[in-house]
């Protein structure tokens, strides 16, 4: 019996074992998932920029009033910076807008800051001494700089909520310079919502005229509740109606005349960015306007203060899908060696930052993908943008300040990484690629970026950067690319002086170097709510000598020069038309 038990036990054990093995074999087909996909293309390499804010003494923070937790669209715009030599000492000084605060339904101002450049990366706060603080004590956004009265000192136009302030640069108390608000006497109305502005002499009388973007019809009495992800968040611009932009003619006697109706300007743009330069090579400055959630505008200057809006036909109003974008910042440069200015526009999340390649001055092609801008994706909300040849290789690179307007965005973040894009050749054409190592620590971290200006603050020939943030200190970034991979490259810089100090926006400068012709453009406005270094700047690569320099002055005439010394700044004065 025991033996039978043993046999039975063996049968049972065998059956169970076979079953278990079978069961295991049946079940042993575990899912094999793929390796996680790389989520970014982050190369490594030397720093291009180092943050020197702390050593400069600059401590400027733009406040938008978000601590009131009202989540108004007013808070989304942010502020800007102006790089300009206000005291004529040859060094670029820096002005920052201060923004403001929201107290119940009161919009209060917060003075901006003005810093005088003392050299060696030291700046002195001259806000109070110059009257700048008092003059900017309203809810401010941005700047546009020009010598509107042609007295040899740059004046400041300051935009903000319900206010447009023209600050005239006047002799100060202590032998220095100061600012006086002359908006009322200049007949510049303070109303609605001026945002970006740009100066240029549209009619050839020498005095800079003015284009002012207005945004939309938000007020506290038109402030819908827009639910975000959970709590209230900033409303989309589509919830509001656009405000009429304005164009003013500088009469030359200190006053301005509103020419909006006679031009006439289009009424349907929610303007946030304005750039003026000669886009069609006719010698007259044209106006490009970046609008939020509506078509962008291109006003070609037809002379005699007449303009023709051709954005759609020229191919710069929409993206490559024929759709308008939420556009903010704008700049233009000859990025591909054609001698023509192409236009870059920063856009909202879900859109691509647009690069419109200038085909012949009348036609543009949306080439963001061909130019590599598609690679960065569509999670960014771009604001400040500027071309500059940061590594002095003779090709214009790009810097972009990003930051979301929503407090709690989906699929992105409120703070976003700024972008530094190098102009490189791929597939036999110019393309932008993120700089190896992302250019330094500043470009590796997330920021609430807004205004951005390019300025060689230490006059070492390498363009530096200043970036304004929402509710965080502005950053001053020193260009140190020349210490590493770009060592030994050369540069040349021009300070153009118009006849009788006339405004020179629309002037085009070309320089022959090593068989190439580099072309630069004198611009009004640009970037976002900011003003960059007014000088004309060339990176020369390894060239130690240059050929012919040609300056085609706006409104006629040109001047040529040969063999300018490199690694120097040259002052070029305008002479009579047709003179050589």
């Amino acid at each position, binding site marked *: 019996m025991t033996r*039978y038990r043993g*046999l*039975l036990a063996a*049968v049972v054990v065998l059956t169970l074992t076979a079953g278990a093995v*079978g069961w295991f074999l*049946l079940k042993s087909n575990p*899912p*094999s*998932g*793929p390796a996680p*996909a*790389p*989520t*970014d*293309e982050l190369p490594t390499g030397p720093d291009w920029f180092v943050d020197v804010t702390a050593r400069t003494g600059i401590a400027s923070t733009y406040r938008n009033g978000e601590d009131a937790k009202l989540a108004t669209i007013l808070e989304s715009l942010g502020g800007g910076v102006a790089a300009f030599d206000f005291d004529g000492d040859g060094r670029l000084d820096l002005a920052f807008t201060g923004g403001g605060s929201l107290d119940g339904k009161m919009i209060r101002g917060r003075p901006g800051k003005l810093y005088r450049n003392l050299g060696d990366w030291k700046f002195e706060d001259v806000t109070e001494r110059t009257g700048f603080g008092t003059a900017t004590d309203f809810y401010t956004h941005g700047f546009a700089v020009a010598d509107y009265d042609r007295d040899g000192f740059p004046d400041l136009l300051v935009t903000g909520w319900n206010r447009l302030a023209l600050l005239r640069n006047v002799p100060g108390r202590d032998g220095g310079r100061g600012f006086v608000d002359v908006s009322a006497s200049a007949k510049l109305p303070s109303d609605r919502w001026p945002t970006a502005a740009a100066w240029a002499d549209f009619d050839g009388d020498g005095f800079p005229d003015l284009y002012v973007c207005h945004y939309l019809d938000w007020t506290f009495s038109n402030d819908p509740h*827009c*639910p*975000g992800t959970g709590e209230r968040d900033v*409303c*989309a611009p*589509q*919830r509001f109606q656009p405000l009429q932009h304005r164009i003013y003619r500088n009469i030359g006697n200190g006053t301005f005349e509103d020419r909006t109706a006679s031009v006439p300007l289009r009424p349907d743009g929610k303007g946030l960015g304005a750039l003026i330069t000669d886009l069609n090579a006719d010698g007259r400055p044209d106006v490009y306007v970046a609008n939020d959630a509506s078509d962008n505008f291109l006003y070609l200057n037809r002379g005699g203060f007449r303009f023709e809006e051709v954005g*759609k*036909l*020229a*191919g710069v109003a929409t993206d*490559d*899908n*024929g759709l308008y974008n939420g556009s903010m910042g704008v700049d233009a440069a000859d990025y591909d060696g054609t001698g023509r200015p192409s236009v870059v526009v920063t856009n909202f*999340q*879900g859109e691509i930052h647009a690069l419109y390649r200038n*085909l*012949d001055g*009348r*036609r543009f*092609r*949306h*080439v963001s*993908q*061909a*130019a*590599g*801008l*598609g*690679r960065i*994706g*569509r*999670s960014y909300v771009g604001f400040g943008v500027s071309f500059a040849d940061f590594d002095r290789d003779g090709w214009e690179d790009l810097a972009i300040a990003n930051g979301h307007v929503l407090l709690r*965005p*989906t*699929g*992105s973040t409120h703070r976003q990484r700024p972008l530094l894009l190098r102009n490189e050749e*791929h*597939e036999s054409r110019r*393309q932008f690629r993120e700089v190896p190592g992302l250019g330094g620590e500043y470009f590796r971290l997330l920021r609430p970026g807004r205004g951005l200006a390019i300025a060689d603050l230490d006059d070492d020939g390498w363009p530096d950067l200043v970036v304004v943030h929402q509710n965080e200190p502005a950053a001053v970034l020193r260009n140190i690319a020349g210490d590493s991979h770009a060592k030994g490259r050369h540069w040349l810089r021009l300070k153009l002086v118009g006849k009788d100090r006339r405004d020179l926006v629309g002037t085009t400068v070309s320089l022959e170097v090593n068989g190439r012709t580099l072309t630069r453009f004198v611009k009004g406005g640009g970037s976002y709510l900011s003003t960059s270094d007014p000088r004309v700047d060339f990176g020369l690569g390894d060239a130690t000598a240059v050929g012919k320099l040609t300056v085609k002055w706006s409104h006629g005439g040109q001047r040529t020069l040969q063999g300018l010394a490199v690694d120097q700044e040259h002052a070029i004065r305008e002479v009579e038309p047709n003179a050589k």
Partner: protein
Amino acid sequence: MARRLSRRIVFGSVLGAVVLLGGLAVPSIQRFRRLDSIRDALQARDLATAYALLNDHLLREPTDSEAELDAARTARRLDDFDAADRHLKRYESLGGSSEEIRLERRLRGSQAGSLDGASGALKFCADHPDHPSTALMIEALSRGFLAAGQPVRAREAIELWLKRDPPVADRAYATALRGRSLEMQADVPAAIADYRASLAMDPRSDDARFALAEILSRESPAEARPHYEELLNKAYRSFEVRLGFVRCLRQLGELDRAAAKVAELKRERGEFVPVRVEAARIALEQGRAADAEADLVFALERAPRDRDAHVQMVRCLRDLGREADARKWIERLTALDAELFRNLPSTGTKP
């Protein structure tokens, strides 16, 4: 001797009984294993495998009516409505429940976007979350609302589905469907988040991977590329994936490679309008406007109301310097946009 003989007889009998029992049990064990495999495949939402196993089972047991019903359901869920009909008819001939047949026919209609009585069905599902048919009904309704271009109602159904805490594979699928509804409502970031979540739950889901790749090819093409490459390796929906990959390459600015690949697609299916429009887009990016025009003329002959082809034609004519022609196409595009806007279905309230 007699004892020894008796022992041998007993031993032989036991062995014989074991062999006999084993012989009798094998078909049952095999059947059990087959049905278990089918259950596993359905549980894992591997519908193709489940359907193949069901067919195999039905070859062995052609009178298994329940298996016919399962095969009909599975074929329907695979969008093979002809096969679903065949199985349902066999189920009917085997004396299957008329109630189940009615339900299955209604589910087929719903899934295809015929949504008569969908509101009532959805209410039934909400009121009876534990009813055995609820899961199938919600799935069919979710897909049907999407097929009918009703993303808001689709999302309502999907949320109901997810609330029932379905098995992980169904949860992954439902999350991908919600991503699709969000994409249809132009909430791209939320759609991406759902596709990502779906793929994390079920990394084998090629549908979710393809949906994610397609949306990322616009939003973050560098991230889309490896998803396309994996799908290409698997030869999953080869033509669509290759076309998507071409678009991804264009977004990445790799135009030479994109042009070579779109030329291959044109050789294979040159009559397919999206391929011609994509070929035109790449040609435009490369500055070959004349080539682009030929593709666009072809595309617009076959699809005269294709918006993308209109947009690219405007760009093309502008590039060619034919301003008057470009103006005409801008007017056509404006009219088309106005019409599309008028006919735009409501996708919910604006934020």
